[in-house]
């Protein structure tokens, strides 16, 4: 079987236009850079939101502990007054 002749039109093959190696490499590089930036951005977002709600939660725990201490004191005071 003879090899296809480049000078004669061949219906099985269509010329691929506009996507040379250099363009493809460039596009892939941009995509990976964008993906890396998006991943990094989401990491920063998670950290930032986590920090905000953690601070509120920690302060909430601090208030809860304070309230527990006050409840103990009130009970102690009531006991002293009744005795």
């Amino acid at each position: 079987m003879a090899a296809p002749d480049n000078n004669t039109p061949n219906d099985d093959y269509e010329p691929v236009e506009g996507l040379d190696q250099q363009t493809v490499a460039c596009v892939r590089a941009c995509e990976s850079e964008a993906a890396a930036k998006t991943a990094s951005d989401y990491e920063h977002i998670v950290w930032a939101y986590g920090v905000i709600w953690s601070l509120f939660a920690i302060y909430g725990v601090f208030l809860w502990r304070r309230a527990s201490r006050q409840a103990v004191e009130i009970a102690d005071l009531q006991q002293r007054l009744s005795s």
Partner: protein
Amino acid sequence: MKKILPLAFLGAAALIFPVSVKTIFLDTPIEKQMGTVQKIFYFHVPLAWIMMLLAVVCGVAAGIQLRRDSKRAEAISIAAAELVLVTGLGVLITGPIWGHATWGKPWTWDARQVSTGLLWLVFAAYVLVRHYGAAGSERLAAGLAIFGAIDVPVIYYAVKVWKTTHPSNDVAGSLPSSMWAALWPALIALLLTSLALLIIRVRQELTDVTLDEAWIALDDAGAQPAPVSGDA
């Protein structure tokens, strides 16, 4: 009714928060220059506003405390100062996280960052004076809070006085309407959470004052000799 108010605020905040997250991440377009990380903005900026609001509340309450010797105003002042520390810490941490992702430098020593840090330090000093100060330092701390509240406009105008790398005040004003829409739910969620914690802390402080007075009364009652029988 009054007792459930903080719980109602927290409940409302818990309901609004998922709405806010949905609005920020699904309904709001990605900002062209900064990309996805700009979404930190929707919590960072309201937190900064709440911090400044609480600083002013602390200063005003301290003024009322000085003028009228009001225990309630004193309690509000203390609670607001502690929440300035909490929200301020949030602003000072999320700002550099945003800065690191956007400009590659977490801390750029620009005027807005420095002024926010200073405001935080002033109210940290207030909390330290309240905690470790001798009797009589309550009024001194109140004076400190008033100075701190006056420092708040310095933060606002610092951006106008110096050239900074921080986004200017005009950023919020020039957002498209879809981005404004994402700011309000976040602001409301954070504000309701802060108010709930403020109310709880105020109540605890007032309880502390009552406990102090009760111990003093108990002390006085214990010191007085029992009446001799026959006296009447």
